[in-house]
């Protein structure tokens, strides 16, 4: 493959952003800017679909590799994808255009700047999932902080400054230790190339500390209990499109990092620290589900549900079972779709009523039926009803967990019940009941663009719920190979 398709995938949004930056748009609505951004992201989505079609599912080795000398004799710019990363790339390119369509309702001022930030963000996010060199990965991973900081800080709600700072500093603090670990890996092994590191392996005596350093970064980003507190703040204050990007893609970076780096590079340390991950995951699942039950703010509730769902993901990854890891990946994709959809549904009524409090609403079903149906679908997907993509992921994770550790699996299953409780209760309070608030009677049902976005999200949720094979086929070989590599490493300990 001579054409640098991955690099163009990474660069295209940035080029779009540059184009936006240099074109002056006089009109109030900034319609041109929006079309340019939309066009760029849709083209990017089509490229990524082409990537998926031409992707060879029968091998676990990296494909579409580009390898260029970058920092002299030290680091190469290396990108490539395997079955795991391609799904995240498609998720990114799929969610971003939907975000851009959704902005005309939620972002009132400085639309052009907002679109630039989102496009640049997309570049960085795709970069994270493509990177096959630790330094390149770190670069994209950290660079994403800049646009997100601005998105929360400029276009966010009333407590936006606090949330933006908390988001930035928490994540930065987690990441600096990872940088120390990356440089140490270079001095230990002589390379930061992930593919070479898979072959070389890292000496056992360093693995535990290095694993912890990577963990400190990914745990904040996932987020795992007890470092999850930035997430509810960031989610609540960010504008809808920002929340969607955060929940759907940014959180997945960490899950992806756990699979690609923690499991891949430090198999022995991963085995050592599995109890830690189990404990934190189970606490996250049960504890944050309980917190979610008590929330009065809809966005906060969904934010806590994200923490709980990501708890399932980390649990599944470290079961080191085929089902567990596959389940985690599917759960991440599914959560990407579902949480994006939930934030957008909340965004829809927030744009109309300017309140995120559950108590403002009630009885919506009688005034906006279309909305209520879609909301129900997403709520059910969130609790993992069979027939939605949420079920596939959770089911596989629990299956993997039961194989590995019965007690943990039982406790995680309690979380499933709690998950059903908070989301159904939310749905009941918002959509059912009597229509008490007089203002709600004038509320309008979904307009065309909202209907389009939510249907776009509903379609894959249902499709992969009934027929998850395309996802599983894509990741299967890569996951099998990862597990084989892990078991051989553990056996040779």
């Amino acid at each position: 493959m001579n054409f640098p398709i991955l690099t163009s995938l990474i660069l295209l949004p940035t080029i779009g952003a540059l184009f936006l930056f240099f074109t002056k748009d006089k009109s109030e609505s900034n319609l041109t800017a929006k079309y340019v951004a939309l066009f760029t992201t849709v083209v990017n989505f089509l490229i990524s679909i082409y990537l998926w079609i031409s992707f060879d599912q029968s091998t676990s080795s990296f494909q579409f590799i580009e390898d260029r000398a970058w920092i002299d004799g030290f680091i190469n710019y290396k990108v490539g994808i395997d079955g795991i990363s391609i799904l995240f790339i498609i998720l990114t390119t799929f969610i971003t255009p939907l975000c851009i369509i959704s902005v005309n309702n939620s972002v009132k001022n400085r639309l052009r700047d907002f679109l630039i930030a989102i496009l640049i963000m997309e570049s960085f996010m795709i970069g994270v999932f493509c990177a096959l060199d630790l330094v390149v990965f770190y670069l994209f991973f950290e660079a994403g902080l800049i646009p997100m900081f601005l998105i929360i800080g400029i276009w966010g709600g009333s407590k936006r400054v606090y949330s933006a700072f908390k988001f930035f500093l928490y994540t930065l603090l987690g990441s600096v230790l990872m940088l120390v670990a990356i440089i140490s890996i270079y001095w230990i092994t002589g390379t930061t190339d992930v593919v070479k590191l898979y072959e070389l392996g890292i000496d056992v005596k360093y693995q535990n500390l290095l694993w912890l350093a990577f963990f400190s970064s990914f745990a904040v980003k996932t987020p795992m209990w007890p470092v999850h507190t930035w997430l509810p703040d960031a989610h609540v204050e960010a504008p809808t499109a920002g929340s969607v990007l955060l929940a759907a893609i940014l959180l997945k970076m960490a899950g992806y990092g756990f699979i690609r780096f923690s499991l891949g590079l430090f198999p022995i340390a991963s085995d050592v620290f599995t109890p830690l991950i189990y404990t934190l995951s189970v606490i996250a699942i049960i504890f944050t589900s309980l917190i979610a039950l008590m929330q009065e703010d809809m966005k906060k509730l969904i934010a806590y549900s994200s923490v709980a769902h990501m708890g399932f993901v980390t649990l599944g990854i470290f079961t080191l079972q085929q089902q567990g890891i596959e389940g985690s990946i599917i759960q991440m994709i599914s959560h990407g779709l579902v949480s994006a959809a939930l934030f957008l549904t909340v965004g829809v009524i927030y744009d109309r009523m300017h309140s995120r409090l559950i108590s403002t609403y009630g009885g919506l079903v009688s005034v906006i039926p279309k909305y209520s149906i879609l909301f129900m679908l997403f709520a059910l997907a969130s609790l993992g009803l069979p027939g939605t993509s949420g079920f596939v992921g959770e089911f596989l994770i629990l299956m993997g967990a039961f194989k590995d550790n019965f007690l943990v699996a039982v406790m995680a299953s309690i979380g499933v019940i709690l998950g059903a409780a908070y989301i159904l209760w939310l749905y009941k309070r918002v959509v059912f009941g009597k229509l008490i608030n007089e203002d709600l009677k004038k509320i309008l049902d979904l307009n065309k663009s909202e209907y389009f976005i939510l249907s776009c999200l509903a379609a894959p949720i249902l499709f992969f719920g009934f027929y998850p094979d395309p996802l599983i086929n894509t990741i299967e070989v890569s996951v099998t190979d990862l597990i084989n590599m892990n078991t051989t490493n553990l056996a040779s300990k």
Partner: protein
Amino acid sequence: MGNLNFILPEIFISLSIMFLLVLGVFKKESSKLIFNISLLVFLITCIITINETFSVSRETLFNKSVVIDSMSSLMKIITLIGGLLVLIISSSYLKIYKIYNIEYPVLILSSVLGMMVMISSNDLIVFYMGLELQSLALYVLATFNRDQLISSEAGLKYFVLSALSSGLLLYGCSLIYGFSGSTNFDIISNQLNYNDYVLTFGIVFILVGLAFKISAVPFHMWAPDVYEGSPTTVTLFFSIVPKIAALTVLIRFLYVPFLNLIEQWQMIIVFLSIASMVFGAVAAIGQTNIKRLIAYSSIGHIGYTLAGLTTVSNEGIQSSIIYISIYAIMNLAFFSCLLMLKRKDQYYENIDDLSGLSKNHPILSLSFLIILFSLAGIPPLAGFFAKFYIFKAVLEQSMYFLAIVGLLSTVVAAFYYLRIIKIMYFDNEKEKYDTDHSIALKFSLTISTILILTYFIFPSQLIEVVSRINII
């Protein structure tokens, strides 16, 4: 005697200084002319330096008291370019404060001359001569806005403290001379290979003096006051050019005469480095004046630069030099932004004056944003790579404590850079600032911001140049 071509830049610059002084005395209203000639002098000296010395691997002159090697030529070029750029963007500021005098370019030239002597010195006396020349010029520069109380105060403070540190330095030099019987670095290096307490005193005195010049903690007290009080363009000069020269001398001291006494000075440098990084990050949080803030920020950055010197490896030295070069570009860009905060012949330098800048001046605030994120060391900007090289060198020597403290203090430092961004982007706007800036100012801001932003595309070029420097 050797080949005088190697010190042609110094000879040319000193002759030019004398000529300019005479011209200034005899010709009335000659400020503009002298400014322009000085720019030309900088440019020509720079070209001479590149021509005559850039390809030289190592030459010595005057009984080995002056050394020309790849480090000295590179650092001289950086110093000259720094001086040139400072002078270019100074003029509009000086005109507004009615201090557009002939002395300004002449003083800058003579202080740069002093620095060039320092950079090339391979002898205690030559080194001290250069140091005093640059310091004397700097004292006057600090008080250049002499009608303002704060500027005179800054100059006086700087003079008193700097004289004290020079005294300590001189005392250290005399102790070293007493032990080795020579003032020449190479001979000292051969003589000093045994451990002695009094010798340690000599080293400590010299290090204290140099730490003062680069404002490393705990010898940083003068920096915030002097930075705040001096005219902004002089602050810019202070924050870049003398540091480059002093750093070069520090490298030369540590790795030529004191090379055999590593265990004596390594802990001192580690301490200076950690203290500067932590203090620079923490103390900047409470500042309200941008110039004071940048003083603390520069203290922090010096900490990172020193971290590279603790490693006793060529990679470490190279990473320090890369760091100080990138830092110089970032600071130049930062001050270019600062010099654009002008409204009706009045410059603004409080952080609150930046409030809502992004609404009225989107391009300026975007540059500010890029510079600040770069100073905070967030990838993919140049500031990240600077830190990256430093920590790469530090971790090669397994100095984990230093690396972790350094990186954690970047997180603290990120807070106050973010605070400026918050004020610019998240707060409500104030009155508009003037937009009629000189072309030179716009040019320097554009170029430096683009360099910071696109450094990641060609990171190898700078390394290639610097990797010729092999001291050990």
